[in-house]
């Protein structure tokens, strides 16, 4: 059905000529067809252009045409043309919008820098990698895409990476998941797709989001579907090192433990462009945190997210030590770790020295009163921090009072989350009042600045 529609789309004039035999032939105006013109014999240029369109696959010709003809051809080109022909030839957004619409329906193009072409290629490559099964799928399927899409892909968001041998989607159909899992266990390797063959070729890649796991496995859950092997880690780390343009790296829910974290960091040290590192929902402990702390001062990181890990006091101290010397980090998220007062105090002391950090999230970290005291002292001295989140810590009534006092000496913080911290209502109100005044102050500043400018 789709093919017939494609054929009709591909060659509407032919269709019209065929249909010309019917009753429409007698009508002089056909309002519903915007292409309709009274001329029974089409113009030679139109015929030529239609011919170009119909033979575009064999003989692509676009740049030599006049602008109006080019627009006409682009409008008529079917989205089913092979990518080898169109990838580097057509830059018209309209065509790629057509392709995207046909393939995925409506999409949010703003997430792709308002470029339909980029959207098409990124999603296309993501799907290829998502469905890549090591040992079964030929790496050529990926590598063939590289020359076509390397100029357009800036962000890769891989939502799943399949382990070898077993294809869970097929397993859904074929069942026999147990045998698959068994064989997967016995298999020589559980390694996933090797990014080493891809990343150094994508010369404009800036963002990479990875999940070493299987999406939608349902009741076919097996632990080894979510295995991030050491070799995977190593190949990924090497690939990341070779990718010089990478700015954002996210590895979620991939069981990155201390060793893997250290390995990744050792390859990411002195990376020329890395700005944003997100290792959330992993198993990073103190040693991994120490490695990340080392990375902080050996790169130009602006944002570090390590929430939902297992960082304890020692790791937090290492991070605090790095933070005290750092001059580039803007955001630090340590939510859902086990820093404790030891780590909290260390971070608070680091805040007295740091002059760049803007946002700090310490939610759900078993912090108590001593940390509150240290933080209030830090807040008095620090003037760059604008947002601080202390929710879900048992600061207690006294901690709240101390924090209130610390906040009363600070003029920069505009957002302070103290929910579920067990502080008194009054101190909470007080803090929020201070926040309002700070907010209005900054707003005035912001309104004044453009006026001045």
């Amino acid at each position, binding site marked *: 059905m789709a093919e017939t529609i494609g054929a009709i789309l591909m060659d509407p004039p032919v269709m019209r000529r065929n249909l010309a035999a019917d009753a429409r032939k007698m009508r002089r105006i056909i309002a519903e067809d915007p292409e309709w013109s009274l001329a029974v014999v089409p113009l030679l240029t139109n015929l030529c252009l239609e011919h170009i369109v119909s033979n575009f696959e064999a003989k692509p010709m676009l740049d030599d045409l006049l602008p109006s003809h080019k627009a006409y051809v682009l409008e008529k080109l079917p989205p089913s043309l092979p990518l080898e022909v169109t990838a580097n030839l057509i830059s018209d957004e309209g065509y790629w919008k057509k392709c995207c619409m046909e393939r995925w329906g409506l999409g949010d193009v703003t997430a792709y820098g308002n470029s339909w072409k980029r959207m098409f290629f990124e999603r296309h490559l993501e799907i290829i990698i998502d469905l890549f099964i090591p040992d079964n799928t030929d790496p050529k399927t990926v590598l063939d895409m590289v020359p076509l899409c390397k100029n357009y892909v800036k962000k890769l968001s891989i939502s799943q990476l399949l382990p070898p041998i077993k294809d869970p989607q097929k397993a859904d159909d074929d069942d026999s998941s147990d045998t698959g899992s068994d064989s997967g266990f016995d298999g020589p390797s559980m390694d996933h797709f090797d990014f080493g063959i891809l990343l150094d070729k994508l010369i404009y890649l800036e963002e990479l989001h990875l999940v070493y796991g299987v999406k939608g496995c349902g009741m076919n859950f097996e632990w080894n579907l979510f295995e991030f092997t050491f070799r995977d880690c190593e190949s990924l780390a090497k690939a990341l090192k070779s990718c010089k343009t990478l700015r954002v790296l996210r590895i979620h829910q991939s069981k990155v433990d201390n060793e893997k974290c250290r390995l990744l960091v050792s390859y990411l040290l002195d990376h020329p462009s890395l700005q944003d590192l997100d290792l959330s929902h992993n198993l990073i402990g103190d040693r991994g945190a120490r490695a990340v702390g080392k990375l902080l001062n050996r790169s130009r990181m602006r944002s570090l997210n390590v929430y939902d890990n297992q960082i304890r006091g020692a790791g937090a101290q290492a991070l605090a030590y790095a933070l005290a010397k750092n001059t580039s980090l803007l955001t630090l998220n340590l*939510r859902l770790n086990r820093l404790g007062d030891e780590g909290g105090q260390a971070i608070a002391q680091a805040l007295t020295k740091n002059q760049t950090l803007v946002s700090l999230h310490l*939610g759900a970290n078993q912090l108590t009163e001593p940390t509150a005291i240290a933080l209030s002292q830090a807040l008095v001295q620090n003037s760059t921090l604008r947002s601080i989140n202390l*929710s*879900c810590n048992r600061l207690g009534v006294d901690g709240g009072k101390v924090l209130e006092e610390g906040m009363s000496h600070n003029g920069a913080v505009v957002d302070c989350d103290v929910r579920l911290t067990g502080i008194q209502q009054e101190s909470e*109100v007080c803090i929020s009042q201070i926040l309002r005044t700070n907010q209005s102050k900054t707003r005035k500043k912001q309104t004044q600045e453009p006026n001045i400018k």
Partner: protein
Amino acid sequence: MSQNGNVPQPADVPTPSVLSDNREERIAARRLRIVARNEAKQRQEQGEGSSKEVEKREDAKSQEQVDRSKLRIQRLQTDGTELVSNIQVAADARESFRRDELEEARRLRLGKLEAEAKSSLEKFEEISKRWTGARLREIPQELRDALNSQTQLCATLIEDKNKLINELQQELKVCDDRYVRDLKRQADEVDLMVERMEEQVKSLITTYREEIKEIQGSFDQEYNALMEGDLKKWEKLRKDRGDKEAESLSQRISRVEEFEALLQKLRVEDAEEYNMIKTKLETDVQVLQQQLQQMKATYQLNQEKLEYNFQVLKKRDEENTITKSQQKRKITRLQDVLNNLKIKLSNQEKQTREENQSQTEEYRRIMHQYKHMEKKKRRFAVMDAQKFEEVWRMNEEEVKALVGRALEIDRLIYQQQLGLDWSPPPLPFMQRSGPIRAQRQARSSALQTATSMLGRDVEEEEEEDDRKMDEEESPTTAATAEGKSGEAGVGTGSKAITTGSGTEKPRKVSQKTVKRLLELLCDEAGFLIENKLLKLLSPLEKTEQSLMKLDSIFSAMGIDNEEDIYQLAEFFVKFKQQQQQQQEEEEAGASGVSGPGDSVEGEDLIHPNDILMALKAFTAQHHRIRNSQAAQRAGESLVSCDVCEDVQYWESMARVISPTKLTVWTSLEKALEKYHTVLTDRSKLLVDTQKLRQQNSELKMLLHQYVNSRVNAELEIPPTQVIQIARNDVINNQSVTRTMKR
């Protein structure tokens, strides 16, 4: 006005009051109060009625509304996000709590497990201890009891373990349940979150709309208020203007009347004045016309004068132009001439330069030719000398041969014809060969002299002895040799010549002094010798060294023959004498008279210190003499000096045969000539007799023929008889001649 416009606030936004329960409201109220206070202050400062300020205030009003809306929206947003994030925070807290719990549980479980392990270990040890005890039992019942108790104990142990396992399984189940519950709750929470988000979005949308409406309303109000105020102002201004116009119109009318009256008056006055002025002016015109006439006349006159002047000037101008053109032409002509002259000059210069060049060239060529000629001349001179010598030698040889022949002939004549003894005359010239001049050249060079001088000290004695011996022997040997052979004589002769040439001039200076002088020179005039030479000389012997030195000194001083050396010596002696004389004069004036002539040929010829001065003086003098000599020598002809000697030489040759001998020869010749004539006669006669004999024999033959012919027989007288008779006669004749000859 503006305040009135601002008063009706929207119903849903009440005016914030300071006493409100809401904190934000209180803050807003305070802010408003402050703003109002500030405005009041400004108003007081700037005074009322400033439209600008009003505008500003109005702007501030709308701005305030916008700010208020913004604040409200933000509040709403923060509240909303708080509401939404509350769920997350709660979940976080729960998660954190769960983790704490899990940790605690794990800790408890571990403790329990450890305790259990410890207790079971104890029990096990007990069991194993009992085994040893059981082994000691010998009574079967006791053993059975023991075994039973063992089994019981084991059962309790296993039970304990099973219990623990059950507990753990229970825990696991609880955990599973909890996980399912958590999942459910999380799903609920997510739903709730989504719901709240939607709600927030909705509420935000509504508030946005409201706020937009409100802001629009405030702006509208502001606009209306502004419009109203402006309209009122406009109306008032219009009215004012109308009043002002009416007033000005009435004023204008009154003024017009006034001005008309004034005009009438002025017109009358002006008419009168006009008439008066007209009459006056007419009279003036008449006077002026008269003046004009006069002026015209003068003008005519002046014009004519000027015309004449103009003509004259024109003429002059023409003349001037003519002369100018002439001058110009002249100038051009002169310029041409000048140019020509210049060209000529340059030509001339060029020519002269060329000439000069050619002449220098010619001069050079002539010089070259001259030199060439000189060379040629020298060459010819040499050639001539050579040729002369050759011719000389040839002739000499010829002459010598002739002399030899003559002597030979003389000898023959003497010995054969005259039968006398013959002695050859003295022939000194036969030993010589070549021209005389060549031998005169053999003048010994300075160096040779020097060598001889220096060599003398060694061979002096012998040589002098030899000479004495020679002088003693030479006359005897010469006498004997002259008698004996010509060759010896020739040898002495040559010796005499050489000695003669060697001691041509008498020497004023002895050879000893000369030698000393040379030695002195050798020592003192070392500066004339080149350093290089000195180095080269160092390995040689002393005499040779001094010789070489002398050579270089002589070459430097220009001394090149023996004479010069002697001259030098003489000069030195003279110099010395002069000096001595001077000294003596001085000394004579001072002390007295010392014996003169002691040092004429004294041991110290000249003081070494004076040698330099002496040398200087000598070279100056010597050069002068030499130059003059060279000039003289150039003028001398080579031939003239030799002619007399040559003549003498040749004549000596010619006089080999002495006049006495010649007389002998002439008389001998005469006798021989006579003898010759006799002989010739006799030879003639011999020829004649030969002829006659032949005729005779022929005739005899003929006769015989005739006699013997047959004809004769027939003849009466035979001829034979006749012949017989004739023959007898002939024989007679012959005998007669023969006798006569003898």
